[in-house]
């Protein structure tokens, strides 16, 4: 590095950019070290003033900050889900029981109907013709009445 730090190199230094040999030069050159200190002073003062101002301006926390509300909302949501599940169970249980009862009644009706159909099918003649059937039996050659003729 030749000569003292240029204004651009001083800005680079303050921005964290180090030109080749700059650090060694600053370590050895009192003028450049002083110039860097002079250049950085307003920036440091600005930081100090801003932090003091910011501290004074920072508002007090709201009665209920958003993240606290979020935390409460999350708990409330969990409670709501639990309550909704319980309510759904309360509603669903009677409906389920009623549905089961209806199924049972339908099953019993089906069975009764099947029995009735079975009875109808097992008859050789319809009910109104059953007396005639008895007469046929009476006149049958194998029947008891026929053998007596």
């Amino acid at each position, binding site marked *: 590095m030749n000569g003292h730090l240029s204004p651009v190199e001083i*800005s680079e230094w303050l921005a964290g950019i180090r030109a080749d040999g700059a650090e060694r030069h600053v370590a050895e050159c009192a003028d450049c070290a002083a110039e860097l200190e002079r250049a950085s002073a307003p920036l440091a003062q600005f930081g100090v003033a801003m932090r003091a101002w910011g501290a004074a301006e920072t508002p007090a926390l709201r009665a209920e900050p958003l993240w606290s509300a979020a935390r409460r909302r999350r708990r409330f949501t969990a409670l709501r889900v639990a309550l909704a599940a319980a309510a759904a169970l309360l509603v669903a249980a009677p409906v389920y029981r009623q549905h089961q009862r209806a199924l049972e009644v339908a099953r019993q009706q089906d069975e009764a109907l099947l029995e009735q159909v079975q009875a109808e099918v097992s008859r050789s003649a319809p009910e109104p013709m059953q007396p005639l059937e008895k007469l046929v039996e009476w006149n049958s050659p194998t029947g008891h009445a026929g053998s007596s003729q």
Partner: protein
Amino acid sequence: METTLAAEPASVTEISVAELSDFDAVVRDHRPAVFRFLLASLRDRELAENLTQECFLRAYQARRGFRGSASVRTWLMRIAVNLMNDHRKSARLRFWRRAAETSLDMGFTGDWLADGRSSPEAEASAREQVRVVWRTAAELSERQRTVFLLRFVEEMEIREIAAATGLQEGTVKAHLFRAVDAVRRKLRESE
């Protein structure tokens, strides 16, 4: 260059993750810095306060995903920077232009500088320099202003600024150089 904080010691990671377990303490410790950064960037007190609230709400919601690859402060600043950028993109907020025109000083007059200089003249000079820096910051580009405030107000390292802004370290340095150079030129003009 890829910006990563993975090389940080494990103890830092553990401390960062453990720090988040007490979220009230996180808010207590970091809220002033987040608010200060947003206030200095936006120069709108109400917006800065709302975004600070939003920042901690987002952090609270995302805290389980935090793995400690950066410090909690850097992580919070990244959320704050992202929130600010989102607001900048929204059409309804041409806030910086408006802020620059209407509320430039916002009560920040340089009087916040602590006393203790060698003479009243030196003190007045220092305060005037602070005012010049404040006003010049308003004229910087958004990125230049962001890295400038993170460096000189929040005193973050280049590496931390890169992590907070999502920029590469070289890009951070380039923005910072332009910001510093602009400030120094204004300071020279004001002498």
